[in-house]
């Protein structure tokens, strides 16, 4: 089957005039000679909100790490606002799938969120009143202001996810990369997170969110990307999620039930792959 990269997104008339936030050209990333991302070329307009969908081992996390400038590329190049990452000065927030932090570390939730502002605070300086205010505001927006002085280790999974999202708000990022933010969180947290994304869209922040929830991608994101080591489709969600393209992305793990698509991921043989990436980090 041919690769299908769809024309520019549905709200193209507004986005097309925006310069690209990130451009990938022939990007290949490999771990120990196993290519995880293969020849990905794409351009994400500033202010776009993209759901990144693909099976386990599709390279979603790898794509995000590459976009955050955290891993070297085997081939190809990435430009942020037309420049290298250092030169562009783009503020990037990256929320990994599972933050590999030491949950026993003696820090309060407030301290963790404040870390997002270390760049603004600068070397040898103490946080200003503005930094403190931005921290509290971010916590309030995620509905966890009451947890500000709790140790990070005492939070539930959903609350931790909120805290790390609050941190990227405090960071005042221009590009937000959230890897599976909805995995393992409760329904109310999911709604809060979606509301925050909505708010970021209004502020013109570029947001990429990986998810394995097709319905969420279709219903809550205007733009979607299908990824399975190669870029399979990128464009308006309603055009991306055709049964052919989805089946191509997920191989044979897709079933049609009541006219909708269901993906069976429990037996994914690529699962080992994903673990392999985590070991590399």
């Amino acid at each position, binding site marked *: 089957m041919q690769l299908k990269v769809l024309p520019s997104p549905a709200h193209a008339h507004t986005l097309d005039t925006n310069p690209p936030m990130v451009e990938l050209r022939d990007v290949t990333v490999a771990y120990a000679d196993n290519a995880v991302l293969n020849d990905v070329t794409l351009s994400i307009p500033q202010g776009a909100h993209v759901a990144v969908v693909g099976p386990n081992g599709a390279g979603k996390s790898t794509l995000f790490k590459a976009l955050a400038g*955290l891993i070297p590329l085997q081939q190809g190049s990435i430009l942020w606002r037309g420049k290298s990452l250092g030169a562009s000065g783009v503020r990037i927030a990256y929320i990994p799938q599972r933050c590999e932090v030491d949950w026993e570390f*003696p820090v309060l939730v407030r301290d963790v969120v404040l870390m997002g502002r270390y760049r603004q605070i600068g070397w040898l300086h103490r946080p200003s009143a503005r930094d403190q205010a931005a921290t509290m505001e971010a916590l309030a927006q995620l509905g966890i202001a009451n947890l500000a002085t709790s140790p990070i280790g005492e939070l539930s999974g959903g609350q931790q996810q909120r805290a790390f999202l609050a941190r990227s708000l405090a960071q005042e990022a221009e590009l937000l990369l959230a890897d599976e933010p909805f995995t393992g969180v409760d329904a109310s947290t999911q709604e809060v997170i979606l509301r925050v994304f909505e708010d970021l869209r209004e502020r013109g922040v570029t947001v990429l969110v990986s998810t394995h929830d097709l319905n969420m991608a279709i219903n809550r994101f205007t733009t979607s990307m299908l990824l399975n080591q190669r870029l399979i489709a990128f464009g308006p969600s309603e055009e991306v999620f055709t049964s052919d393209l989805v089946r191509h992305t997920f191989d044979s793990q897709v079933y049609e039930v009541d006219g909708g698509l269901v993906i069976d991921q429990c037996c994914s043989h690529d699962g080992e792959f994903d673990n392999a990436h985590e070991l590399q980090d």
Partner: protein
Amino acid sequence: MFDVITAPLIYGFMQRGLAAAILVGIVCSVIGCYIVLRGMAFLGDAMAHAILPGVAVAYLLRGNLLVGALAAAILVALGIGTLTRGSSIKEDTAIGILFAASLALGVAMISSLQSYATDLSHILFGNILGVSNQDLLLCGILGAAVLVVVVMLYKEFLLVAFDPVLAATLRLPAGAINALLLVLIAVTVVISLQTVGVGLVTALLVTPAATARLITRRLGTMMLLSAAFGVISAVVGLYFSYYVNIASGPAIVLTATAIFLLVFLFAPAKGVLPRMLRRLR
């Protein structure tokens, strides 16, 4: 009553010893917080043994022991960083190799001296009552420098210890910050040489910090409490050694261990006994 405290201080060597013990108690306990939180106890121990050749060379050349130790310690700190960076040797293996080899080299060199046994025991277990004014001055300057760096780079050290991924996304030079931490640990070990010696310095680095960890929720408070425990151990240990006539290094370490055991048993939230009581209720 006051005689008990003031009587030993009529001797100049006791005054200098006390000052050195307090200084070492503070610096070790503060930097030890990072060692405990990052699980680097083995590294602290290794560092202590690895400076032995430097001390031996200074001894043989009749130079200043502290200067020899400092040179060796900084070499080793940077050596561990280089050996592990991007190589297939794991950090603990690299440390194990360096640590044993340095210890062997150091002992081999010292063993060529006639006063072998005394000299070796001073180096291994400290000789606090032999601290000269010159030593005290040098230790004071080095200790103050360590504390100043810890305070000035508090938030950078915190971030690199807690969340290296965020540090990388914020484009902080994590490698340089880690190397600096190793150098600070090395300097601290050197300062402790005369007080508790190579063999026991790990205890001063780890025990007060581990004690503080049991009763705090923030790194800043942990450092202050740890320093307090370090000073108490140093002072009580030194007086104990004076009155009971035992070696001062071990007395200081045993005092620190006793405090740890007390807190470990009775700490309100994490203590063993309060937890058992709560379970019974």
